[in-house]
C-alpha cells in the first residue's frame, strides 16, 4: 500500500533543487568574477607602482648627483655649522665670573675693603675689613637678600669675625656657594 505517494510534492521538491543549483552557480560565478577583477586590479596597481618607483628612484639619484656636485658649498656649510655650534655652546654655558664679581663688589660700601676674593668653580671665599661693624653688617644683609632672591649666590657661610683692637679693624671671613 503506498500512502505517501504525492506527485505534486515531488515536483515542488525538484523545483527547489533547480533553484538551489541556480543559486550555487550564480555564487560560483560571482566568486570567479570577483577573483578575476581583484587579480586584475592588483596586477595593474603593482605595475603602476613599480613604474612610478623606477621613475622616482631615477629622479632621486639625479638630485643626489646634483647635490654632490656642490661639494664646495656643502663643505662650507658643514664647517660653518661646526664652528657655530661650538661657539653657541661656549657663549651659553661659560660662567660669567666678571658678573659674579661685579655683583659682589656692588654690595659693598666705600667703608669696606676687600682684602681677598677667591672664586673657583661654584665656590668662593671673601675676606673683608672695615673700621666698624655697620658696613660689614650691611654687606651681609645685602648678600642674604641675594641668596633669598636666588641671585648669583646660593648660600653664605660666615667663617669668622675678628677684631683688631689695636688697629680698630674688623675682619669678616665668608664662604660662598654660587648658583
Amino acid at each position: 500500500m503506498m500512502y505517501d505517494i504525492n506527485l505534486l510534492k515531488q515536483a515542488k521538491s525538484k523545483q527547489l533543487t533547480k533553484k538551489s543549483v541556480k543559486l550555487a552557480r550564480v555564487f560560483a560565478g560571482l566568486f570567479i568574477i570577483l577573483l578575476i577583477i581583484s587579480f586584475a586590479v592588483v596586477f595593474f596597481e603593482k605595475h603602476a607602482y613599480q613604474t612610478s618607483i623606477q621613475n622616482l628612484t631615477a629622479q632621486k639619484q639625479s638630485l643626489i648627483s646634483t647635490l654632490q656636485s656642490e661639494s664646495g658649498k656643502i663643505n662650507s656649510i658643514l664647517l660653518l655649522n661646526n664652528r657655530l655650534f661650538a661657539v653657541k655652546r661656549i657663549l651659553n654655558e661659560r660662567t660669567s665670573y666678571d658678573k659674579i664679581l661685579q655683583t659682589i663688589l656692588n654690595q659693598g660700601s666705600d667703608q669696606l675693603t676687600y682684602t681677598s676674593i677667591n672664586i673657583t668653580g661654584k665656590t668662593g671665599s671673601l675676606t673683608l675689613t672695615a673700621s666698624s661693624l655697620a658696613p660689614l653688617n650691611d654687606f651681609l644683609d645685602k648678600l642674604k637678600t641675594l641668596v633669598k632672591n636666588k641671585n648669583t649666590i646660593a648660600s653664605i657661610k660666615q667663617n669668622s669675625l675678628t677684631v683688631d683692637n689695636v688697629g680698630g679693624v674688623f675682619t669678616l671671613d665668608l664662604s660662598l656657594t654660587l648658583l
Partner: protein
Amino acid sequence: MNEKQTTTTIVVSESTFKILLKELKPFILPFVLIVFSILAFYFIVYPQVQDVLKLKDQETAIKSDISKLSANQAVISSINDNDYKNDIDILTRAMPEGKDYTGVIKAIAAAANGSSVPLDSYSLAVGNLATLSANLSTQSSLSVALQVNSNPQSVQRFSSELLKSVPLCEITSLNTNGISGGVSTAFFYQPYIEQTFNPLLPIVQVNSADLAIINQIKDWENIQDTNYATASSQLSLSPTPTPTPIPSLTPSPESLATPSPTLAP
C-alpha cells in the same frame, strides 16, 4: 540473522550514496569553483595585495626623500659663497682649529688695554686640555694664568673685557687681594673633523639668531683690534706678537701693560 541485517545495511548505504550523488551532482562544480576562488584569493591575490602595499610605502618614502633633496638643493642654490666665507672666517677666529697663541696674546693685550689694567705677567700652559670648566669640560682649550696688578674693580673690568675677546675664552678661577689679582682662563679651540655629508639630512641654514651671534663676535673683534692697535702703538709692540718660550718673565712696573708670556709645558 545478524549477517543478513548487515548485508542489507550495506546495500542501503550504497543506494543512498548513489541517490545523494545524483542529487548533489549539479552542486559539485559551483562548490569546486567557490573553493578554488577562496583558495586562489588567499594564496595568490592576498600576497599580491601585500606587495602592492609595500610598494606604496616604498613610493611614499622615495617621494619624501625627493622632497628633502629638493629642499636641500634649494638651500644650496640660495647660498652665497662669499657670505659664508666671511662668516666662517669670523667663527674660525673665535673658535680656532688649534691653539692660537698669537690670537690669545692679542686678546689679552687688548683686554688689558680696554680695561686700563696693567698686566703683571701671564703664562700659557702648552699641551693642556680643558678640564677646568665643569660646563665645558669636553671642549679643548689653552689654559692661561694671568696676574693683574690692580684692585678688585679693575680685575672685574679686565675679566669682562676678556670675555668679549676672540678667541673665545672662559674664566675658570679668579682671585684678588685688593692690590693685585689672578685670573685663570681657558681659551677654546676645536679641531675640525671631516664630516660626511648625508644628502637626506636637512641642511641647517644660518638663522637670524646665528647671524646675531656672528655680528656680536665681529663687533668684539673690531673693538679688540682697536684696543690692540692702541696698545701696540703705545708700547711699540710688533703687530703680530708671537710667544717665545721664556721660562718666566716679570716686566718692570713701567711696562706693566706689556704682556710677557710664559710658556709652561
